[in-house]
């Protein structure tokens, strides 16, 4: 089974975010980056499927030159090779245009299964995978908690709301968006890290893929949310703040 896993590099989770002077994006010069967490689970699922079924895992990443680090980490964990759509200005693409880039990169690959995380931790649109399925003309299912290979297709467990689930069968090729927590993430081994250095990373550009930077939906402005509720911040050294809080719990919330 040939499996493509789409991975995205996002600012590290505990980044302190500052909006740039123009209010169009964050100040990203001094941030550190990591793999989008749901994509890490998608990669792990791809690796586990390959271990059971045989085949190949190809990592696909659209991102600036700096995304090479995240791609190397995917190769170190066990992806066989990678496609890097190298673009510095991905902000000019909306999810539809981005998926068009990814679809163009996959036309020569003809994967049996495409996996993505269910959403990104930065933009959080939660739709690139589904759009990609439509562009590739393959069936899809989202928020997946289990994947079983069957004769001629797959059977997956979809998460619904309020603790409900549902099994869905579909033929291959197909695309699935993977929910965090579907599996247990592995760490790269020293051997894996060493091997990753020799694995193929094919670089593609938007110009080569023939996809123009387009956005039907645009950010007009980015800003810190206004506080709708007045939070009483308890100041002071940890001990002092803790004492104030316990007093509030005792005399105002009256739970002590």
């Amino acid at each position, binding site marked *: 089974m040939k499996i493509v896993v789409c991975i995205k590099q996002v600012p590290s989770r505990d980044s302190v975010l500052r909006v740039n002077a123009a209010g169009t994006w964050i100040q990203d010069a001094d941030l550190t980056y990591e793999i989008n967490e749901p994509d890490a689970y998608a990669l792990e699922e791809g690796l586990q499927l390959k271990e059971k079924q045989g085949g190949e895992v190809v990592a696909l990443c659209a991102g600036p030159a700096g995304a090479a680090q995240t791609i190397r980490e995917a190769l170190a964990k066990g992806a066989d090779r990678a496609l890097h759509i190298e673009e510095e200005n991905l902000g000019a693409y909306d999810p539809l245009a981005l998926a068009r880039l990814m679809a163009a990169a996959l036309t020569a690959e003809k994967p049996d299964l495409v996996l993505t995380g269910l959403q990104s931790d930065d*933009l959080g649109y939660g739709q690139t995978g589904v759009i990609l399925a439509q562009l590739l003309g393959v069936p899809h299912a989202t928020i997946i908690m289990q994947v079983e290979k069957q004769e001629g297709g797959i059977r997956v467990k979809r998460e619904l709301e309020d603790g409900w689930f549902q099994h869905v069968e579909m033929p291959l090729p197909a695309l699935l968006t993977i929910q965090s927590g579907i599996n247990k993430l592995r760490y790269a081994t020293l051997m894996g890290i060493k091997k990753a250095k020799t694995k193929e990373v094919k670089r593609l550009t938007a110009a080569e893929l023939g996809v123009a930077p387009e956005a039907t939906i645009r950010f007009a402005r980015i800003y*810190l949310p206004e506080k709708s509720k007045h939070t009483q911040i308890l100041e002071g050294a940890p001990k002092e703040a803790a004492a104030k809080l316990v007093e509030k719990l005792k005399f105002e*919330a009256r739970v002590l």
Partner: protein
Amino acid sequence: MSESVLVIMEQRAGAWNRMSLETLAAGQKLAAELGHSVAAAVPGRGVAALASELALKKLDCVYAVDHELLADYTADGYTAALDQLIRKVQPSLVLFPHTYQVRDLAPKLATRFHQALISDVIGIRAEGGPVFVRQLFQGKLNADVRPGGPAPYFVSIQAGAFNADNVASGTAPLETFTPELTASVIRQRPEEPFRESTGAVDLTTAEIIVSVGRGIKEKDNIPIVAELAQALGGELAATRPVCDSGWLPIERQVGSSGQTVAPKVYIAVGISGAIQHLLGMKGSKTIVAINKDANAPIFEVADYGIVGDLFEVVPAMVEEVKSCTVLQR
């Protein structure tokens, strides 16, 4: 193209998904502000009764999108049916509730109209055309988004962003729309939905909950917050990532995929406050947040906050609680 808003409602087994009614309120408000007409549609099999309910709302038209092949939700079937409806009705804006089903369906549908979905919207303003507010970085920043290119534009509305009680009543003409569907276009074969028991821990009856997020850093640090829960006589709970990592069992998970709680006091320790978590606890009477990031979205909903290092604050609280309860005895 007519200037109109079309709200796509979600139902299962003849009952509304509550978020649909919130989205209906959003649609009525947006249409009023833009001077558009507003219609609503309910797809499914045998949806006449639900459509009749909608016909008692202040709407310009109600569509019962009825077909045998819409009995069970499938992405392919629902996309094909709604594609046909939208081409007939020609709305300028299509609104959905941001449910799991919509996340499965709406991006596919929007792609067929060469549009991306403006997903998970928390606010709408009319400023020479609609402006949609959505969250970035799990709620740490907001963005104003403007649609562009040829309409229709596709938008999904976050749970709790609009109040379902604000849906205005009225009367609306009801139209049945029968899409042309064949079984061969539907590639997904869904089975019956089922529920997994969440285990023995019932957090919904707890008066005090101490809940822990990723800020706890590793499993070995869990006892630090467990001790606070114990000192307060409360239950220990956690966010999804903490349970995903196996640091606490899933039956202690609070949020949209876990339990929904409303205790007297909810103490969020090292929790940044992603919407999926807030949905499970924002009904708590008093919310306390302890987080090192003053801009963490959890402070949006907190009554009391301490901006600081949980590894210093929480042990100090345990000391305080212990001395205070000892004095009482």
